[in-house]
């Protein structure tokens, strides 16, 4: 017997990302849903994961959800309150950087997981200007694994980025090596419909799995490029326990969950 529990796609996304975090990972968090994912992971499958922020806070004890990575809530009872320089060095460092998983979002993504968070349109005369890289390009450059949040929409999954802010697999299997970047790259893209992965040979995006009630065709209809869907599975919906952790322990005010 089981009871149906209602949940939102934001909740599904946060839970899906939390499941990707392994025990012992050092989790680089941005603003918003990525913080919830990291907070939830610590309560579920990765109690020894470490949450850290580009602002310099290491292993923040998040009693309340921060609304920015510069929120004073990230400074409470950390292991060390360092500076930006320390935080980014942790990711570029040859030993600690290998253990970091970065969670990030963007305005556009291409088939190799490269991200744009700078402009839509011409760089010098943009139609839309976004915030810019912040630490996103640094994280994408340095760490061994990134998890990307996206809304599934044709204008966001594009054949060509208007601006390549953060390197994914660049132009394929040797792209990062040719450019001079460390090993590593995007592990998965979590959207409101599905989880996308990257083929280990071609480094091109593939559909890994659909959320409950989503068909492969729905996913493809909302993308500006085609991807292999042959290996796609059905994603397990959030369990009652996962939802209760997310709702009660991570964001009781629903500041991020909405």
């Amino acid at each position: 017997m089981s009871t149906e529990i209602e949940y939102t796609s934001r909740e599904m996304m946060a839970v899906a990302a939390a499941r990707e975090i392994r025990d012992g990972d050092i989790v680089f968090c941005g603003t918003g849903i990525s913080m919830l994912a990291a907070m939830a992971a610590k309560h579920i499958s990765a109690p020894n994961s470490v949450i850290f922020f580009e602002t310099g806070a290491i292993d923040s004890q998040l009693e309340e959800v921060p609304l920015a990575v510069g929120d004073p809530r990230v400074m409470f009872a950390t292991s060390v309150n360092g500076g930006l320089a320390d935080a980014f060095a942790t990711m570029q460092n040859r030993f600690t950087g290998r253990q970091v998983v970065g969670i990030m979002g963007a305005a556009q993504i291409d088939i190799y997981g490269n991200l744009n968070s700078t402009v839509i349109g011409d760089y010098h005369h943009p139609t839309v200007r976004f915030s810019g890289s912040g630490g996103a390009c640094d994280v994408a450059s340095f760490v061994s694994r990134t998890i990307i949040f996206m809304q599934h929409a044709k204008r966001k999954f594009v054949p060509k980025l208007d601006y390549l802010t953060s390197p994914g697999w660049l132009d394929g299997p040797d792209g990062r090596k040719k450019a001079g970047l460390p090993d590593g790259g995007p592990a998965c893209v979590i959207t409101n419909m599905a989880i996308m992965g990257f083929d280990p040979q071609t480094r091109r995006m593939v559909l890994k799995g659909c959320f409950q009630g989503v068909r492969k065709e729905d996913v493809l209809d909302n993308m500006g490029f085609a991807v292999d869907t042959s290996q796609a599975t059905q994603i397990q919906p959030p369990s009652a326990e996962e939802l209760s952790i997310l709702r009660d322990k991570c964001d009781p005010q629903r500041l991020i969950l909405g």
Partner: protein
Amino acid sequence: MNVNSDKLMSLADAVFRFVPDGAHVSIGGFTINRNPMAAVYEIIRQKKGRLHLYAHSNGQGVDELIGAGCVDRLEIAYAGSGRFASTCIRFRKAVESGQLPVEDYTNYQMTLRFMAGAMGVPFLPTRSSLGSDIVNRWGFSKTVRQKDPRVPDRKLAVMENPFAGWCDTDRVVLVPAINPDVTIIHVQAADRQGTARINGLPFADVEQAKAARHLIVTCETLVDDDLLRGAPERNQIPFFCVDAVVHVPMGAWPTACYRHYDYDPTRLHHYRKAALDDDRYRAYLETEIFSSKNHEEMMARIDDRQLEKIKADPRTGYAVGLDRR
């Protein structure tokens, strides 16, 4: 560089003396935290113009300086204020309307640029941004770069590792040093000579401070030097880097000052609403900034109950349970 024993002055004096029109300026803080907002408002009040502004992710202060028309050029990594503005609103308007030339770097690169300035070297290396448009696309034209001797001749340089693959690295990006004419930071405590202490995260304030030709330190509390020298491990800014010490309680408001007050959601939402509309923004500048003589007067107009709500809890350093919706 100043070893005087008393550098205390008013904010109006400090801004008047060290922030001339056309100055290259950097401000401390991060998004909605510890921006030197009192100094930002004073710069706006004194109608400083043609500023060249350097920022990593300084958020609120950057947006208000741009909104008031003080800024001619911007070098930045991230213009956002967390959930209050995923992209800073006046920044976005200025860029989309073609009024604000911007040079894009990453957060680490901006940090390294300040660090290089503080260290006295012309550049520092990083592996960040290889293969990206941060390397390939430049915001400032050659002409702009050649005209101002305070701007380097190129945005960055990509270089092969001269140590034959040492550290498994083939290539690095060199980012040029920044030496601002003036840096302004807001700290929790300083003495009259200028020794300064930051509580919580220092962000890149220390690098920004040491990179600058002149440094204005605004402080939440002015303390005796004995107090700071009793635990010098906790101080970050040696007094000889400092030119002006200004005592400004609530000097970071409406951004946060760890262990003193939280960010002010009411004010940040109010700002957001004003910023979205040009007419409302003009009114905001007039009634909230220009019509007040100084920060004290500006703060006196804010409802005490609003300020009471953001007061930091002694255990956590922020306002526990604050309504932030």
